[in-house]
């Protein structure tokens, strides 16, 4: 649904994007993850026809933003980093404005506006100017405005930045709901947790390059550093197990962290050792590295230019 190869963009002497390749299948939730200044917003602006790349080829829903931007614009809904709502108009007027610009017609346009107000829980605030809305309400209106045309691809640039935890959860639900309806989602985020929760596929952008790409699980496997946590009924058991595994006993505790990747053979060997030492094990859990580990490991190696 979205594909890009070799996208370059520089402003003056500053290279922002250096050969970015992307491939987002239809119906997926894709997360472009990266720290501030990685080039996330520039990527979104190029894909949504706002700026032209210096080089590279792009297809959005089969159309080329360089030669046929209106075909791309007809297929996408965009919610930028800063809520792009008209603060002087009411929520309803904002949606009707978009419907009018899309030539939906008077009655269908009003019906669509009412549907979206209902869907985004803005019906009671529909007749109030958007200037009086809270941050979360503005975001919801912003996203609703991107959906008036029922787009096939939705771009969300940092959709949860500035929202409180409840607003963030609600936004995640909204995004999942859109994806369940068959919409392809392209979101950017600097929160690993968010990408981990939502995305089917994550690309990690760092200094204008994609440094890693895959499912959340695949990315986590790129980084060693997992461990197995053993739980014992008594601290004495912890000590015996530690000695049997050649680790320093942690003292008066009932849990023991054993380094390892959590693969089946390593677990089998671990359990055999504990059996041989005659320790009663109460529980066991495998910890793969989380995305934070991936993020830090991969971005630390990509030295800044």
């Amino acid at each position, binding site marked *: 649904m979205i594909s890009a190869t070799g996208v370059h963009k520089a402003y003056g002497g500053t290279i922002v994007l250096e050969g970015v390749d992307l491939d987002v299948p239809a119906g997926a939730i894709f997360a472009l993850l990266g720290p501030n200044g990685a080039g996330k917003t520039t990527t979104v602006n190029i894909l*949504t*026809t*706002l700026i032209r790349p210096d080089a590279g080829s792009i297809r959005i829903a089969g159309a080329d933003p360089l030669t046929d931007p*209106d*075909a791309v*614009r*007809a297929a*996408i809904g*965009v919610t*930028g*980093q*800063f*809520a*792009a*709502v*008209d*603060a*002087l*108009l009411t929520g309803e*007027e904002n949606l009707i*404005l*978009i419907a*009018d*610009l*899309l*030539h939906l017609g008077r009655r269908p346009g009003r019906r669509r506006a009412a549907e979206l107000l209902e869907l985004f829980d803005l019906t009671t605030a529909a007749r109030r*100017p958007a200037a009086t809305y809270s941050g979360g309400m503005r975001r919801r209106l912003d996203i609703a*405005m*991107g959906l008036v*045309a029922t787009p096939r691809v939705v771009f969300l640039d940092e959709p949860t930045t500035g929202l409180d935890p409840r607003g963030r959860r609600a936004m995640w639900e909204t995004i999942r709901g859109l994806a369940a309806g068959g919409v392809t989602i392209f979101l950017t985020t600097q929160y690993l947790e968010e990408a981990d929760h939502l995305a089917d596929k994550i690309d990690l952008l760092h200094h204008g390059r994609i440094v890693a790409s895959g499912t959340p699980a695949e990315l986590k496997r790129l980084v060693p550093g997992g461990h197995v946590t053993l739980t014992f009924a008594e601290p004495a058991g912890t000590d015996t197990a530690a000695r049997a595994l050649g680790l320093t006993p942690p003292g008066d505790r009932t849990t023991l962290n054993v380094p390892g990747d959590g693969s089946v053979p390593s677990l089998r060997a671990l359990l055999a050792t504990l059996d041989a030492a005659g320790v009663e094990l109460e529980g066991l859990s495998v910890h793969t590295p989380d995305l934070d580990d991936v993020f830090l490991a991969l971005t630390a190696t990509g030295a800044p230019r």
Partner: protein
Amino acid sequence: MTTLAYAVRDSNTMLRRNLRHTLRYPQMSVFLAGAPIIFLLLFVYVFGATLGAGLGGTRADYLAFVVPGILMLTIGGATTGTSVSVASDITEGIAARFRTMPIARVSILTGHVLGSIIQTFASLVIVLAVALAIGYRPTANPAAWLGVIAVLAMVCFAFTWLAVALGLSAKTVEEASNTPMPLTLLPFLGSGFVPTDTMPPGLRQFAEYQPFTPIMETVRSLLTGHSPGTHLLTATAWCAALALIGYLWSRYRYNRL
């Protein structure tokens, strides 16, 4: 529908948006019409007797002399409103939203231009009404009035495009409220408030050749029932040139957002 029909329809949608802004945020309109009214009262009641005597007449004669200048102040002042509202759209992200939609791109600008012209005309009518209320009695016939309206529309059109360009060039809304300042002050440095032959050399040449002077002379001639002569041609040329510069400059800035 043809491309042009879409452009007209989208411009109309944008125009309605801008007019709604005017209703929701009337402070700006009140200020834009209020400032020239204050200048009118100031010049007529504070300076009017002395300046009228300088013209060889009375306060009432000065009122008749100064009205075209006040009308130009109204148009010059309105550029601030246009520039600010364009800059707000650009900096608040809503223009970026419009640009990711399959709409006639020019409609974002034409909506502002049409909205500003309507708003400026409303201000001009209010200012004229105040002038009439304090005793202004123009001697123009209906044909001359039509000429006045046409000239004012032409001037509005030209200065609004310049204001759009200034709004698009500004990095912040504050900057957009400052850059039109020269347009607001320019009418004072012309033949609107005192005859240019009373000015010192240098300033006098500037006053005689700057665009507002032939425009004010044209409007004054029409309102007093005289033929504007070559002033009309010069004024038209200035407006055409300024409108073209404003339009091309706006287009250049807009394509580089």
